[in-house]
């Protein structure tokens, strides 16, 4: 084409919008809404994701934590030398804490801390600045529950080993500590430099040393990948946020996946907006193109006219959408920040905006050409009689080619937007399948409608039904848009409900949050009635029998002790007083990784024993090995029957050694019990009554740890709810404006009907029933498909239980019918007698 022809086509395009600029602008608005949804969704999505990710870091309190039973070995220290960023270290150990004022002692978990740890989350204390006293005196921070139990106050004293500390404050929230540590007893924090003064550090004492790193420009997981071998060889444990998150289950991954799914759905929504408005416009241009063909215009030239207009609409729509989306992102936090549990900051995602722009252009082009594809290969005469002749083969081929091109591009966009190719492909494939299904269903339905005459129905309703299957009617398109939009809304709502259910389970609701230790056998019943009196939900008491190792594999334990951990056993492990339990069932926080679980002892020569994997490694034991245990004076010969991997993050008491039922029942034993306290007042009250009635029972309040997890869960839950709601809101907008656009087409025919003497009320019934019927069917299709797909997604994709409520479907159908009939009503309201005449005149061109 020559420059003058380009210019001509542009000018014709501009003229083509005469008299309908407002309408076309309205079409663009649909695009705008869809794109705004996409931009805002991806903005909020990454925002929320970052917020939750930051929050999740408080699970560990640092980016990387290395820990070992000794100070970090030289070679490992050398490895960490180059790591940029601050670091902290601590030593933690179990020790008796003695409170001189009360003359009481209690086993506590002491952490001697140095540095700014935690780097993520805050160590909450009362008073808030209590930790500052670490800098200039022998200060200690003491577990809130312990303070309550012993009625301790700030500036009281606590003695650990040989060093006395002044109590600087209560510990309220502790980021970065795992539940395993807590199971030993309440926590006390002291400054690292007083560690030696306690005189608790001796050869053989079980002290855990740790160093925590804040990564400044390096990736802890990548660093681990390189050095994992060396760390394992040196028996240094490692922990990163990623590992912690994995231990929390797949909840976090699910959150990310859900957020990107919402982004993808918004992309499709934007697509619907563009496709529907451009398609509606282009469909009306067939006649103009036919006239131009008659006058000798080449299709290759004249086709540019509607393409320019479509592109213009798409561009205006997309630009408006990007602006609106950014505005929403900017204004929303200003208005609602106070109510949000997450800090929403404002950011421009240039990549997303660019992608959207390209998407807009491609979709606009394709959806202009699709309805106009017949113009290329048919004669002008056939064009005037549009719809009465079957398409020629070349037209079908072009249409198919365009279709494939479109699918290809869409899949590309989806994969780019998804950032995870597999997820993108699955989603894209799903959407295609869905479109095919929806298309097939609506085609089938329209065919069926054509077969039946519905003689019994009132004439206007009969006409409405007949209208649905007229050639070149937009029913199929409207049904497709409504069906797809409705599907996305329903599907996401259902998936979001299932995910919320999962997160609520990960959170501390309905979970024990206090553990009671050292319950004597004869106290069990009295304690149960105390708990029942205070109406606290509880789990059944778990028996605990203390024992020591007498010999390993036939060799007395004394002979195993040594510092070479590859062949010898460290002193603490050899001399440790193991607290073991017995039970027939496996607990749900452990998993057999070798051997087999034996539930009952049936009197064989050796007692079948189940060992936790890390202690098995420390003791150089594996399945089949023999151990003799000294249970308070009575030797038991045991054979290792299974090794267990234990989820120490779980808030349940876990054990190194588990006996089957039928061995230890008569041995002297104590009990542990998990209790759920609904509030900190309830917890304090329980601790007070325990102190009075059972002074020997100690309690550990897990709330301190759970609070960190709960905060994260609350944010993640909010993120999911918010995005689901936001998406549904924008989807409704887009669908609404799609419908309003499609009604434009109706006006012409209605004008004729009115001119023929139809009553206003008749026309109203006609349009309302026509649209209502469309809405009803689309909602029905959408619901059925959404039920199926949300089941598949939650069950196979997220691996969580599928939750659904039937009322949702009811609401969807109701909402859809309401939306559509309202549109039908609007169609009718829009004109007066003069408008009828004008419409009719416009018809006669």
């Amino acid at each position, binding site marked *: 084409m*020559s420059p*003058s*022809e380009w210019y*001509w086509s542009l000018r014709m395009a501009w*003229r*083509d*919008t*005469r*008299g*309908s600029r407002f309408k076309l602008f309205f079409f663009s608005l649909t695009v705008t809404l869809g794109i705004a949804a996409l931009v805002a969704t991806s903005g909020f999505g990454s925002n929320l994701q970052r917020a939750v990710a930051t929050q999740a870091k408080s699970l560990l309190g640092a980016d990387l934590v290395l820990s070992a039973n000794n100070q970090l070995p030289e070679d490992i220290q050398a490895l960490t030398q180059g790591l940029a960023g601050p670091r902290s270290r601590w030593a933690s150990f179990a020790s008796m804490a003695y409170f001189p004022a009360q003359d009481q002692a209690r086993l506590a978990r002491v952490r001697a801390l140095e540095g700014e740890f935690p780097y993520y989350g805050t160590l909450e204390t009362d008073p808030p600045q209590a930790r500052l006293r670490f800098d200039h005196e022998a200060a200690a921070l003491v577990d809130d529950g312990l303070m309550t139990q012993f009625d301790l106050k700030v500036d009281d004293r606590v003695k650990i080993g040989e060093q006395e500390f002044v109590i600087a404050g209560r510990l309220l929230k502790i980021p970065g500590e795992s539940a395993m540590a807590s199971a030993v007893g309440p926590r006390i924090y002291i400054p690292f430099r007083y560690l030696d003064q306690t005189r608790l550090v001796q050869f053989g004492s079980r002290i855990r040393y740790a160093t925590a790193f804040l990564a400044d420009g390096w990736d802890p997981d990548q660093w681990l990948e390189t050095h994992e071998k060396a760390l394992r060889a040196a028996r240094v444990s490692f922990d990163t946020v990623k590992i912690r998150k994995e231990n929390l289950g797949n909840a976090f991954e699910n959150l990310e996946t859900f957020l990107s799914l919402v982004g993808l759905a918004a992309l499709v929504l934007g697509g619907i907006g563009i496709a529907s408005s451009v398609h509606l416009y282009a469909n009306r241009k067939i*006649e*103009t193109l*036919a*006239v*131009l*063909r*008659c*006058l*000798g*215009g*080449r*299709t*290759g*030239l004249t086709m540019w006219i509607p393409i320019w207009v479509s592109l213009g609409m798409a561009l205006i729509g997309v630009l408006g959408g990007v602006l609106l989306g950014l505005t929403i992102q900017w204004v929303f936090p200003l208005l609602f920040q106070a109510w949000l549990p997450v800090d929403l900051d404002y950011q421009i995602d240039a990549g997303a905006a660019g992608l959207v722009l390209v998407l807009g252009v491609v979709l606009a082009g394709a959806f202009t050409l699709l309805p106009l594809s017949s113009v290329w290969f048919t*004669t*002008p*005469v*056939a064009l*005037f009689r549009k719809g009465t002749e079957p398409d020629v083969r070349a037209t079908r081929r072009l249409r198919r080619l365009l279709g494939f091109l479109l699918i290809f591009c869409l899949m590309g966009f989806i994969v780019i937007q998804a950032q995870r190719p597999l997820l993108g492909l699955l989603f894209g494939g799903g959407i295609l399948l869905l479109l095919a299904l929806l298309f097939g269903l609506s085609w089938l339905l329209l065919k069926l409608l054509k077969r039946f005459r519905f003689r019994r129905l009132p004439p206007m309703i009969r006409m409405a039904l007949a209208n649905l299957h007229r050639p070149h009617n937009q029913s199929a398109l409207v049904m497709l848009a409504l069906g797809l939009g409705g599907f996305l809304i329903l599907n996401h709502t259902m998936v979001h409900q299932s995910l919320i259910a999962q997160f609520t389970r990960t959170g501390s609701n309905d979970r024990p949050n206090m553990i009671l230790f050292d319950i004597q056998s004869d106290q069990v019943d009295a304690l149960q009635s105390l708990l029942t009196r205070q109406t606290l939900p509880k789990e059944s008491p778990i028996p605990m029998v203390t024992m020591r190792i007498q010999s390993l594999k036939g060799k007395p334990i004394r002979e195993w002790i040594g510092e070479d951990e590859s062949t010898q056993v460290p002193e603490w492990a050899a001399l440790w007083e193991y607290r073991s339990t017995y039970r027939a069932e496996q607990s749900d926080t452990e998993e057999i990784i070798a051997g087999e679980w034996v539930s009952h002892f049936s009197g064989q020569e050796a007692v079948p024993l189940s060992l936790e994997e890390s202690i098995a490694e420390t003791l150089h034991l594996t399945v089949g090995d023999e151990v003799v245990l000294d249970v308070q004076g009575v030797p038991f010969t045991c054979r290792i029957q299974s090794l267990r991997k234990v989820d120490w993050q779980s808030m349940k008491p876990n054990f190194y050694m588990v006996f089957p039922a039928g061995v230890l029942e008569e041995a002297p034993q104590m009990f542990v019990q998990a209790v759920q306290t609904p509030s900190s007042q309830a917890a304090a009250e329980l601790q007070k009554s325990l102190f009075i009635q059972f002074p020997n029972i100690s309690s550990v309040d897990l709330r301190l740890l759970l609070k960190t997890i709960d905060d994260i869960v609350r944010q993640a839950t909010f993120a999911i709810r918010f995005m689901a709601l936001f998406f549904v809101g924008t989807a409704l907008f887009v669908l609404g404006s799609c419908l309003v656009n499609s009604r434009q087409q109706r006006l012409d025919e209605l004008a004729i009907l009115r001119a023929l003497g139809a009553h206003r009320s008749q026309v109203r019934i006609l349009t309302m029933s026509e649209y209502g019927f469309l809405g009803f069917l689309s909602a029905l299709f959408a619901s059925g498909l959404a039920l199926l797909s949300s089941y598949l997604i939650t069950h196979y994709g997220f691996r969580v239980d599928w939750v659904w409520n039937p009322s949702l479907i009811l609401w969807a159908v109701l909402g859809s019918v309401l939306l559509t009939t309202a549109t039908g009503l609007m169609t009718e309201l829009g004109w007066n007698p003069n408008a009828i005449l*004008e419409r009719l*005149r*416009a018809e*006669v*061109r």
Partner: protein
Amino acid sequence: MILAVENLTRTYPSGAGLLTVLDQVSFQVALGETLAVMGPSGSGKTTLISLCAGLDQPSGGRILLEDQDLGQLSERARSELRNRKIGFVFQSFHLIPTLTALENVLVPAELAGRFDQEDQARAFLTRVGLAERMNHFPSQMSGGEQQRVAIARAFINQPKIVFADEPTGNLDDRTSETIEDLLFEMNREMGTTLVIVTHDAHLAQKTHRILSLRMGRVDSESSTSALEHSA
């Protein structure tokens, strides 16, 4: 001969079989001649002149326009031919609704790459009596006025031959007469060949020859007194 039609056949698929709308139609039109095509409704008149103007594809036979076989041309070449050599006036006007009268007239010129024809178009519109309506849109004009714009549009590229399909079929008698006169006058002034489909025997008498169609066949071909007049 400007137009030669040889054994022209047009069929449409209909139900199980074929519907033959034109059956072996042959005739010729000489340069500068006027021809009326007559026949009852449904006899195939529109189909015939659409084919002659290259707006449709024949099922059999040949159409030669200035000795060029329309069937041998590519769609692109046919478009160009339509643009340069053929004018067409439709029964239902087919103006482009978003363009003014002036712009509608200019379209064929612009399609031909001539962007300097505005004065010419104004002259044509003045000639058809629409000097005051240049910037009106089709929906602002009466049927007769719209058809005048269509006539001006048909002549703007100075075609060799103009086809008019019942140009007055949608108009009242008085308007019809002025439109018909206009068409004949323009045709004479420009030295164009005119093929006009009409029901109106009185109008047909103004042409040189009448071609009668019945059920898709040539029923009769006759010269009129107008031929003797001009001769």
